[in-house]
């Protein structure tokens, strides 16, 4: 009986259904806790690019950071919360359907009368999504700091993008050339990247991840520039 085909199929089916039920149950119950962690991580990332890393800073997130949502024309979008935007998902939709309208969250930090723009970045590495936050000075040109993270890049290679060694290179890089047009910050294997304000050293053995980060920077920073330039003129 134990080896009849009917029994084997029946048993396999029952096990699958039970396992699936338990997993979906657990996922539903634990989701609120996990989302809280994701939100906290996001807020901590945003604060970290403007140098607020103490645990008590995180509690004052709303005091430090003002968030706006901007559209492709560089206008503020009303009634949409910055944290509700899933940038990676929107960009994926856009790649399938070019008429899809992208909206970007922008976080603004103000201290001592000086603004810092915190740009959200989303791209793809070798194995999955990569993302990051980039703090841009009020002049709309100088990078103050950048942080990156990834879902599953290779440890020791592509995964190095979230180390200080890589992120630290971004401080004081410029995204505009001398004539004021956008050139982004390129992640490149060229030697002497240190002397060029538009280049940082790529990661050895992490070429595809590095290229992904480079593309992400170019695409996403450009989107914000319309808005930042507009608010500069006002």
């Amino acid at each position: 009986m134990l080896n009849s085909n009917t029994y084997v199929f029946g048993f396999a089916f029952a096990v699958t259904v039970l396992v699936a039920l338990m997993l979906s149950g657990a996922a539903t119950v634990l989701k609120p806790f996990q989302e809280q962690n994701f939100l906290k991580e996001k807020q901590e990332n945003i604060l970290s690019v403007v140098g607020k890393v103490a645990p008590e800073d995180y509690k004052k997130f709303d005091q430090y950071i003002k968030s706006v949502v901007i559209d492709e024309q560089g206008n503020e979008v009303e009634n949409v919360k910055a944290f509700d935007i899933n940038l990676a998902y929107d960009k994926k939709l856009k790649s399938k359907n070019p008429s899809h309208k992208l909206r970007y969250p922008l976080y603004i930090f103000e201290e001592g009368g000086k603004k810092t723009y915190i740009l959200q970045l989303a791209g793809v590495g070798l194995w999955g999504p990569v993302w990051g936050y980039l703090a841009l000075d009020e002049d709309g040109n100088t990078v103050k700091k950048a942080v990156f993270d990834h879902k599953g890049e290779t440890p020791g290679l592509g995964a190095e993008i979230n180390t200080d060694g890589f992120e630290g290179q971004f401080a004081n890089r410029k995204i505009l050339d001398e004539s004021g047009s956008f050139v982004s910050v390129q992640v490149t294997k060229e030697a002497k990247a240190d002397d060029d304000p538009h280049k940082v050293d790529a990661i050895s053995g992490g070429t595809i991840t590095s290229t992904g980060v480079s593309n992400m920077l170019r695409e996403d920073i450009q989107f914000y520039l319309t808005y930042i330039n507009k608010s500069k003129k006002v």
Partner: protein
Amino acid sequence: MSVVTAPAPVKDSKPLLSKKDRKLVTDPLSDSNPITIQVLGICSALAVTTQMKPTLVMAISVTAVVVFSNMLISMIRNLIPSRIRIIVQLAIVSLLVILVDEILKAFVYDVSKQLSVFVGLIITNCIVMGRLEAFAMGNKPGPSMLDGLGNSAGYAWVILAVSFIRELFGSGKLFGFRVIPEAWYAPEIGYVNNGLMMIPAGALFIVATIIWIQRSINNYTEEA
């Protein structure tokens, strides 16, 4: 080496563990240790042991998976058709591993990020399926749980010992607290952390040394 003491099971009907039951827990600590004698689960022993905190969480996770998969498989051992037993075992193990992963993500998110893919890879840890095939398929749930507990404790003490050495000499800390004083790093004293400890190759040397010591103490020799 510190010996991990197993808590006395509450569910057992007998007041004390029988000698046979006790052997189930104590044997895998040394005489049939999954890492040092059977050389199973080495991959994660190299991967997660740079610091003690994630190692401890990994040890607890593996314990939960081994104990409960042993229990569940043992409970249904007479119902599983032998032709699909491996895939049924895998389904149960995957269920438990994903549950552990989800719970870690919900309650110890930072550690879960450090462990990243390695929690998911518990599914492929040979200790888990090894115990299911070797023990749970042929024994009652109670002894199976004890067997799981013993084997995961055997795994736990080895990876904790490895991470103790790696974190102490690799970053001068234990459980994230500084043990080697900052002052030693000053140029006059010139102490430096051992970079080898931070990479998997370092773990390989430590695991090998532990295996060597353990086998000399036990007089264990590979069967020809």
